[in-house]
């Protein structure tokens, strides 16, 4: 009985765990966030992190420069594995982006208030991840300067149009729409906060720059009314969009007839995997940032706990996907499907399959324990490993199927080269560089949304009867 009461008290405590630390008002919340981009001194940790990102970005420039000069032969990608690192990395980055849209759009529609303090930088993560993703298919064409008319319906002198019956072209539309809408949604969300920055900036340059980007926002009742309607509509539009993006990405595989790809489970399985890896990336970024910038009051343990739970839930869905893949391979009765699954588990790339299973099915179970979810250091390591696991998942899907298809005479192994890794780590550099610039120059937490969470923001409509 006493135990029961204790459990109940704990349950209430969890339910009421604040999404914002105690003792805050409008001014302290605003100051906590606004002082980071307005600070004159740049923290040393920022400089070091930025330099790491910038070095890797230069590696990307070198890799892509060499690729343009030499051709994609510098990568290990070759027949039969004509889709290798570029597609693995593309799907990995696109997937990471999904958590940002889930947090900013889907959780907005569900009125999940805890999303407010993490949505801004999760959305930034989305935009930067999509930018990294886009590099791969464009450069995988080998002649990126021709990609304009290969990928888009661009009126060219040969009067050729894209092949609209191909999922690859659907992907172009899905990803470019996703990138555009994510940027628009992010910028719309920024405008009121940029106005706050304009009003608080001390230096003339910052006043002018923030002033230009805030477009003259005044926060009038009419402004806010239209703004709220626009935000809700954008969230409503982003929700079906984000679900469609990874669905279309999975069509690249599912619409083909290759064993291991031709499966109806692919769309939901890909979307779940995308959100799983995206939340892992949000945690990977949020845990060090909240510690470095002392944002524990705004990104509370409740946020960390919720994100870990979402990661666990989507991780279990992904695990279900792996189970069903194996089950269908057996149940299909198709010799080629069964051979593919056996080869995936015990063939030359078997190590990658078992690594992925041990992370995404095994390790993720630790998140059932509250003590693990409360340990930010451990959670940081887990979220990093989840990113590795999800990268391996795409590697397994892409490479094992292509390396051994229907006829043994067409089998062949794939080995990544130095330039494969250089390009991949180079995009991580691009991501880090953009992210470090973002946290230095843009308010990384949505100040106006967090203000609405404070008791100060409550209005009683029938107060004083209005006379």
């Amino acid at each position, binding site marked *: 009985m006493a135990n029961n009461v204790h459990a109940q008290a704990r349950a209430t405590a969890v339910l009421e765990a604040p999404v914002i630390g105690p003792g805050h008002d409008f001014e302290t919340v605003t100051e906590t966030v606004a002082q980071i981009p307005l600070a004159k001194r740049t923290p040393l940790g920022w400089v070091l992190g930025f330099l790491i990102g910038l070095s890797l970005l230069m590696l990307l420039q070198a890799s892509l420069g060499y690729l343009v000069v030499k051709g994609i032969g510098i990568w290990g990608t070759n027949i039969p594995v004509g889709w290798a690192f570029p597609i693995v990395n593309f799907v990995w980055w696109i997937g990471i982006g999904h958590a940002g849209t889930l947090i900013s759009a889907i959780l907005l529609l569900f009125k999940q208030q805890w999303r407010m303090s993490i949505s801004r930088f999760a959305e930034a993560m989305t935009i930067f991840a999509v930018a990294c993703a886009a590099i791969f298919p464009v450069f995988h064409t080998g002649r990126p300067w021709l990609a304009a008319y290969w990928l888009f319906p661009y009126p060219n002198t040969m009067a050729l149009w894209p092949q609209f019956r191909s999922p690859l072209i659907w992907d172009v539309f899905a990803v470019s729409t996703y990138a555009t809408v994510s940027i628009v949604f992010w910028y719309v969300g920024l405008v009121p906060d940029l106005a706050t920055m304009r009003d608080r900036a001390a230096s003339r340059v910052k006043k002018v720059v923030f002033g230009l980007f805030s477009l003259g926002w005044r926060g009038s009742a009419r402004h806010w009314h239209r703004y709220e309607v626009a935000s809700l509509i954008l969230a409503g539009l982003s929700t079906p969009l984000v679900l469609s993006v990874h669905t279309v990405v999975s069509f690249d595989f599912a619409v083909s007839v290759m064993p291991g790809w031709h499966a109806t489970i692919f769309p939901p399985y890909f979307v779940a995997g995308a959100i799983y890896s995206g939340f892992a990336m949000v945690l990977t970024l949020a845990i060090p940032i909240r510690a470095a910038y002392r944002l524990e009051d705004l990104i509370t343990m409740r946020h960390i706990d919720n994100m870990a739970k979402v990661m666990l839930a989507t991780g279990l869905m992904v695990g279900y996907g792996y189970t069903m893949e194996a089950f269908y391979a057996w149940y299909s009765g198709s010799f080629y499907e069964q051979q593919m699954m056996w080869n995936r588990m015990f063939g030359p790339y078997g190590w990658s399959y078992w690594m992925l299973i041990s992370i995404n099915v095994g390790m993720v179970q630790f998140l059932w324990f509250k003590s693990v979810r409360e340990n930010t250091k451990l959670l940081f390591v887990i979220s990093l490993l989840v990113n590795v696991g999800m990268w391996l998942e795409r590697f397994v899907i892409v490479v094992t199927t292509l390396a051994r298809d229907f006829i043994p005479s067409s089998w062949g192994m794939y080995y990544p080269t130095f330039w494969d890794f250089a390009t991949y780590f180079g995009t991580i550099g691009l991501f880090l560089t953009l992210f470090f610039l973002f946290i230095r120059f843009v308010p990384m937490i949505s100040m106006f949304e967090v203000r609405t969470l404070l008791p100060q*923001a409550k209005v009683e409509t029938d107060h*004083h009867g209005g006379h």
Partner: protein
Amino acid sequence: MGGTEAMAHAAERENPLYGVMAEFDSVQALVDASKRAVAAGFTKMEAYSPIPVEELNDIIHRKRTKLSQIVLAGGLTGMATGFAMQYWMSAVDYPMNIGGRPYATWTAFVVPSYELTILFSALAAAIGMFALNGLPQPYHPVFNVERFSMASSDKFFLVIESADPRFDHGGTTRFLGEQGAKGVYDVAA
């Protein structure tokens, strides 16, 4: 007395007044003051707050935005553009027999059309919101009041414009002062 009043009038003509601005400490005070100003018969006014307050629009403007209709029009345009473009390119301008399928494979055209529907709707929502709000707008008289820089942090403001038929400088200033304002300022045009 008459002399100073004439001087004030002359000054007003030289520095035309946009309106009078009252500063409040809480969102509740702003909502209450807005209600009383509406009850007092003022029509040309605007409330400014660092957070969205849906009640203020209901009290002062009493009408919803037509943004949702703009977005619907944008979405339908996007869908029509998607289908028309793909049909024209695949069936009219350069028909190509691919695997014996019909030229107008509308089921395959669904995905790009779906994406263009969302793209056009989202752009209509964002651009429509900014356009209806009259943004970008580099200059607005309210920015002439120094205290107004707090409107984006933690202070709340109510402006009654001089264009209001019931506006009279002294009377309106007094009215706003009686509503519990922490300060009442003239807003130069």
